[in-house]
């Protein structure tokens, strides 16, 4: 589904991603792991159109999408979340979700003033959808709260909720679990699995929590120093000498052992 072909991203003299090639199969939940500074988030940013790559290509279903703007990628069904949760802080949770679907008639000045019936109908559909998502994520009690007042974990849920407002093909999750407590993490994990099974979303997940990876991801891709080091099931990865070496000093060996 997603094919990354020898992607390189340089910031000045520093090479953050170096000739990384990988593939994400349709319908999979692919994990992307690696030590801090391995270039995972930069890779995400390049795929998601935030940065232009220095070299290399990204394909979505065989179509070259290298360097497209983020909102253009959104049209193609490619969504992402942020490592540090982003939200529209002065809008309510429901409004945050209702913001997501594009091409709503209410965006055109003409329709706003002269075609209110059309605007209202579409808005009603979007509202119903938003309420479903709120129900699904079990955040009804804060639905009308300003998103800026949510806790860190609730913001993460909202991030996930945004991806559910449209029929996404592939969703990139950047550390959805960071700073989230165990219970909430399980909720998020369950939501991801359900979205994958029931709606056929393809996920690519950056995560540091190995239990979380274990529960969700197959296959797992390991990055180190800007390149792809290994790919396989989590057990294969754990047994890979190179990977263990890359993680030395960051404690994967211990985590693998336990």
């Amino acid at each position, binding site marked *: 589904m997603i094919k990354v072909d020898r992607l390189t991203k340089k910031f000045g003299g520093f090479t953050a991603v170096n000739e990384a090639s990988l593939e994400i199969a349709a319908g999979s939940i692919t994990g992307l792991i690696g030590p801090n500074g391995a270039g995972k988030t930069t890779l995400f940013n390049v795929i998601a159109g935030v940065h232009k790559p220095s070299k290399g290509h990204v394909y979505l279903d065989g179509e070259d999408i290298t360097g497209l703007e983020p909102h253009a990628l959104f049209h193609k069904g490619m969504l992402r979340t942020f490592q540090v949760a*982003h939200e*529209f802080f002065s809008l309510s949770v429901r409004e945050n979700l209702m913001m997501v679907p594009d091409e*709503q008639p209410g965006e*055109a000045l003409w329709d706003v003033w002269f075609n209110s019936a059309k605007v209202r109908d579409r808005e009603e559909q979007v509202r119903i959808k938003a309420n479903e998502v709120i129900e699904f994520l079990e955040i009804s009690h804060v639905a009308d709260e300003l998103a800026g007042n949510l806790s860190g974990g609730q913001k993460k849920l909202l991030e996930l909720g945004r991806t559910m407002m449209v029929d996404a093909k592939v969703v990139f999750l950047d550390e959805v679990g960071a700073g989230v407590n165990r219970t909430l993490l399980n909720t998020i994990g369950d939501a991801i699995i359900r979205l994958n099974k029931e709606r056929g979303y393809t996920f690519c997940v950056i995560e540091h929590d190995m239990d979380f990876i274990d529960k969700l991801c197959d296959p797992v891709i390991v990055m180190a120093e800007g390149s792809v080091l290994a790919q396989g099931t989590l057990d294969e990865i754990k047994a890979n000498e190179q990977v263990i070496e890359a993680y030395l000093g960051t404690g994967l060996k211990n985590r693998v052992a336990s």
Partner: protein
Amino acid sequence: MENWLNAFALLSNFVIVPAIAYGSQLALGALGVTLVFGILRFSNFAHGDTMSLGTMVVILFTWWFQSMGINLGPLPTALLALPFGIFFCAVFVLLSDRFVYRFYRAKRADPVIYLIASVGIMFITNGIVRFIIGPDDQNFADGERFIIRAREFKEMTGLDQGVTIKLSQGLTFVTMIVVVAALFWFLNRTRSGKSMRAYSDNEDLALLSGINPDKVVAITWIIAAALATIAGTLYGLDKSFKPFTYFQLLLPIFAAAIVGGLGNPLGAIAGGFVIAFSEITITYAYKRFVEYLMPESWEAGGLIQLLSTDYKFAVSFIILLLVLLVRPHGIFKGTGV
């Protein structure tokens, strides 16, 4: 008692009524500045000249309508010309965005670069306006002049002191209320308005949602142009139109936007009135006001004027400095300067 009423009438005539009208004009101007700041993230120094450009188009259309004998009876013909002014002004700012600001947006330039670019646009706009209509004063008000004349007021109330309310002042206030209500309805209730607020909250996230940034930017410019043209036309009807005066208006307008909290629409309105009332109360000569209230023997020798009207812009400066020192984010919390 009657002296008190006379004193109050005097104050209404020379301070309260003019300050409400002037405050409304500043509020509309500051709303434009604050919207551009909140959504496009830069201080648009060209706003004063955008006002003068829009007003110029309104004047040209007004003259054309007058020559054809079209008028609105007691209301000024300029109201009829207003939509045309807004249209041409919107086209102009959209073109300036297309050829100048869009380039910097694509490069994700620093706000200070936009600011300098807007100074350039300011000079160009200023030049265009002077080239087309000339640097002189233009008077384009027609229709009824007054809502209440001083003589009528005196006959009505039996007071010695008259109160005059010009039609342009009443019109300014009413228009301001209508425009502000429409704008707040738009920002809070419609999808476009919410997109604008969303874009202002978090640009990165907006780009990754179904918000079309080009549309948000275009709508922002159209609204800013509409606000500028309306504010400029009302100011021109109330006083007179002179390109240089509009350029000078930039200071009180920015002071109003900053005092209220840049990026906060409610603050812009409050700021407009704070600046207008300060400017007028500080530069008003209170001699006659005091005469009404004090025994005759206390009659003041001077004008009892705190500051000459020549220094009225200094008032905006002082308020601006005080606010920046004491509350850098403005009265209402804005995004900061």
